[in-house]
Every structure is written in structure tokens, then in C-alpha cells.
């Protein structure tokens, strides 16, 4: 069954959606959208370095994403507002990554595939990495769920309960780096943040508890990935952006529905 490229693409999209959605809830709750952007954009630099030293793309992207996350954490609280700092880091990383890629002469490189994803070219090996990474992220988030939630509410509240909020922040950073590495092939570095936050934001009005929001977000992300893939096949549009368009339309519908319900 893995011989069909559409099957592989569908499975790849669903794996990414399942990993990104629950983690995306934390990105929304902790207002880390820009942080997600910074780590994702840095990954293009990781791609360039991996190609230069002939490492697997996933490994390079993940390492650079982690380095980026560490750099942001170290620099935060030293004079610049967090959004300024992240804006500088995110776009610098992207620019340096693009320049680094241009130095790689002699390597046939489809830059667009890394910026916007190339889900139709997902191989069996890629699938193994995507599902392995997704399983790791889901397991990590599920294992730390209560501690992560408590630390998200208030760091001192967590400390009083014997939870180290810095350790939980590191767990999130690690999970984010894995998702970035996993999602490059599917939606590309520019659209990873969309896969994180749009399903979570879409799910918000339909949830009364954090767990419900994560589950609804996962459902929305999977449905969006499947619908987007089908739409891109029939309309002959780029797949990653089409998937994001579908979940963006779901978000608009969810927001509109909530507004209408609120008025009545």
C-alpha cells in the first residue's frame, strides 16, 4: 500500500497533523507563535548545513531548531522585548539559511520544496521518520501533560507542586524542534507555524477543557490535511499551502459560527 504516492502523502500529512495539533495548543496558550516561527525558519539553515555535510535533513533541521530555541532563551530578558528579539532571530535565520543554500553549488536543490513542503515526494523512509517523530512528540506531551499545564498556568504554582517550570519549557522546546523537523517535508518551514496554531485556535470555541481542545485540534488538523491533499490533487495546486488554506477556512468558519452564536 505504501507504493502509491497519494497513500504515502496522506499518511505523512496525518502524522504531521497529529503531532502538531496538541503541541500547537501549548504554543497558543503560552503565546509562543513567534517562537515557533523562529525555530521553524532556522530549520532552513539546518537544511543547508545537512546538505553541505551530507547528514540527513531531519537531523540537521532539528539540531539547528534546538540551537535557535536555546539562543532565544538565553537572549530573552536582556534588553529587547520578546517579539522584537524573535522577529530579528526568525527572519535573520531564514535569510542566513537562504544565503547558505545558495553556496551549495553542484547540488540540485529545489528550494521551494523546503520552504513550502513537497508532500507528494514523501518516501517510505520519510514516512518512518514522520511517524516516529510524531509518536515521540505525542508520547512526550501526553507524559508531561499535567506538569506542562500547571507550568503554563503559573510557574510558581508549578514550583509549589514540585514541578520545575524550566524543565517543562525544555520539554516543549524539544517537542517543537521535532515537529519542525518532521513537518519540513510536508508543509515546509514557512508554514509549520500554521499547522501548529490554526487547528488549536479553530478548536478553542468547541472545548471546555484543555484535553478536549487538544483532541478537537487534532481532529481538525487531520481532516484539514486529508481535505487539502485531495483538493490539491484535483485542483493541481501546491499541496502544503492547500492544506493550510483548508484549515484557515475551517478557522474562519469556526470564528464566524462563534460570533453568530454569541449575537443570538
Amino acid at each position, binding site marked *: 500500500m505504501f507504493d502509491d504516492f497519494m497513500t504515502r502523502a496522506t499518511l505523512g500529512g496525518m502524522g504531521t497533523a497529529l503531532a502538531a495539533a496538541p503541541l500547537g495548543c501549548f504554543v497558543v496558550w503560552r503565546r509562543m507563535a513567534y517562537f515557533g516561527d523562529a525555530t521553524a525558519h532556522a530549520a532552513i539553515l539546518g537544511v543547508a548545513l545537512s546538505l553541505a555535510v551530507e547528514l540527513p535533513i531531519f537531523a540537521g533541521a532539528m539540531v539547528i531548531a534546538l540551537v535557535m530555541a536555546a539562543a532565544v532563551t538565553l537572549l530573552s530578558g536582556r534588553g529587547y522585548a520578546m517579539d522584537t528579539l524573535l522577529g530579528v532571530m526568525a527572519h535573520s535565520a531564514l535569510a542566513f539559511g537562504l544565503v547558505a543554500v545558495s553556496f551549495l553549488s553542484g547540488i540540485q536543490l529545489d528550494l521551494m520544496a523546503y520552504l513550502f513542503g513537497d508532500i507528494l515526494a514523501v518516501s517510505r523512509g520519510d514516512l518512518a521518520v514522520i511517524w516516529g517523530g510524531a509518536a515521540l512528540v505525542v508520547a512526550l506531551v501526553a507524559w508531561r501533560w*499535567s506538569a506542562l499545564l*500547571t507550568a503554563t498556568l*503559573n510557574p*510558581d504554582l508549578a514550583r*509549589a*507542586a514540585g514541578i520545575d517550570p524550566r524543565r517543562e519549557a525544555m520539554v516543549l522546546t524539544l517537542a517543537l524542534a521535532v515537529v519542525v523537523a518532521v513537518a519540513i517535508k510536508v508543509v515546509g518551514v514557512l508554514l509549520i507555524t500554521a499547522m501548529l496554531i490554526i487547528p488549536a485556535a479553530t478548536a*478553542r470555541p468547541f*472545548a*471546555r477543557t484543555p484535553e478536549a481542545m487538544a483532541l478537537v485540534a487534532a481532529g481538525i488538523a487531520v481532516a484539514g490535511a486529508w481535505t487539502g491533499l485531495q483538493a490539491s490533487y484535483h485542483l493541481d495546486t501546491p499541496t502544503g499551502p492547500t492544506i493550510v488554506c483548508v484549515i484557515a477556512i475551517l478557522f474562519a468558519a469556526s470564528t464566524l459560527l462563534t460570533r453568530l452564536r454569541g449575537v443570538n
Partner: protein
Amino acid sequence: MPRLRIGTDGMTAPLVETTGLGVSYGDVTVLENVDFSIAPGEIVTVVGPNGSGKSTLLRAILGGVTAAKGRVRHAPGLQIGYVPQKLVLDHTLPLTVARFLSLPRRVTHAEARDALQRAGVSGLEGRQMAALSGGQFQRVLLARALLSRPDLLILDEATAGLDQPGAAAFYRRIEEVREETGCAVLMVSHDLHVVMSASDRVICLNGHVCCEGTPQVVAAAPDYRALFGEGTRGALALYQHHHDHSHEHLEGAE
């Protein structure tokens, strides 16, 4: 510096003890040479002007800031219940009261119901945290803190958002909780007169411990009056008139 120590029982081991505690943020020294201890079942209030290091002392006890000097010791197996000054709930986070009470440890429906009842807000389980009033919110925070069966309850400006009757009712609740569970209570507050009357011991802090003792002793201490009497332009002096019931002062207040 005169140090007044009244109210600690020398025989019982303290739940928390700091010796020579110093905390700095960068070049700024926030706390210096603070010796503090709290015994089982004791209610201790820390008062002090803004920037006096009250919240820093609590955070040092919780482990949120590291001591530059001295040390913080906890009794072995100490359970702390913490009620923060404020909890900013992002509106993107859906959270019912019942779910909040189960963080981080799952509690049964019966446990949640009991805790809400003890905090004086029965029947709120199904409500969204964001939909609660200020007073309900603080009491739900208290209920959650009680669920860990704390030996020590720490309250950081827990009544900052409440009006005076609300704050007074909250502190009466705290005293009742102490009687019911026997836990010690450590709090930081601006509501000096209300909170001090409910305390066994008051510590007046201004980067260091200015004075310490029973509420009456501290209220009469020159260091305390120097910190609060002038800064509040007599408003607090009125409370002291109210409290020491001396004739001459009552006449003076009219």
C-alpha cells in the same frame, strides 16, 4: 538593630527556615541577611512597602529564585499549598473549575467538592475559570491549594483584587482552615490591619527584617511606624488608633 521575637515555639522544628538569606537581581540587592522561620500551625504575615522583597522572599521559599547568600531549608517531606497573587488565564485556554482543581494531581469528585466547600465556594465545579468573579476565583485558588493537604499554605497578596469586606471574609476563611487542618500559613499582604489581626506573628520587611513579633508589638515598633506611618499620610495611624483603644488617640482621631 532591635529584633523582637515572640510567638515561635522553640521546641518544634520549623517547616521552613532561612538563614542569612540574600537575593540579588543583577546588581540590585533585594533581600539581605534574612533569618526567617515558620513553625507548624503558625500564621505569619510579612508586611513591607512596595519593593521591600516580600514576594521575593516567598519565591525564594518556593525555589523560584536562587539565594545569592545564605540558605533555605524545608522540613523533610514538606507539602506546600500556594495561592498566587494573580493568575492570568489566557482566554485561549479553556479550563473548568473541576479540571483546575485536578492540576497537577488528579482528584476525585468528592475531594473536589469538599475542597470547594472548605474554601466557601460550593458547587462551582462545572464553571469556566474565566467566568468567575474575583472573590470566587481567589477561593477556588485556595481550594486547589488545600487539595495537596499542605503543611504550609503560602498566600501572596491573595486579596489584592478584593474589596475590604471580601478580603476580611477571605482571611476569616483562612483562620478557619488553619483550625480545621492545622496547617501553617505564610502570607504577604497590603491589607495591614485585617491581615495583622489574624496573625500570630508579623514580620516587617524592607530588604531586611526591620522588626518582628506579635501584631501589637510590631504595630508599636518605631521601625514599622517609620515605614508605614508616614508613607500613608496617617491613614494607617488611624487603624492603630482603632486597634490600641487608647482614649487619647481616639480623641485625637476625631
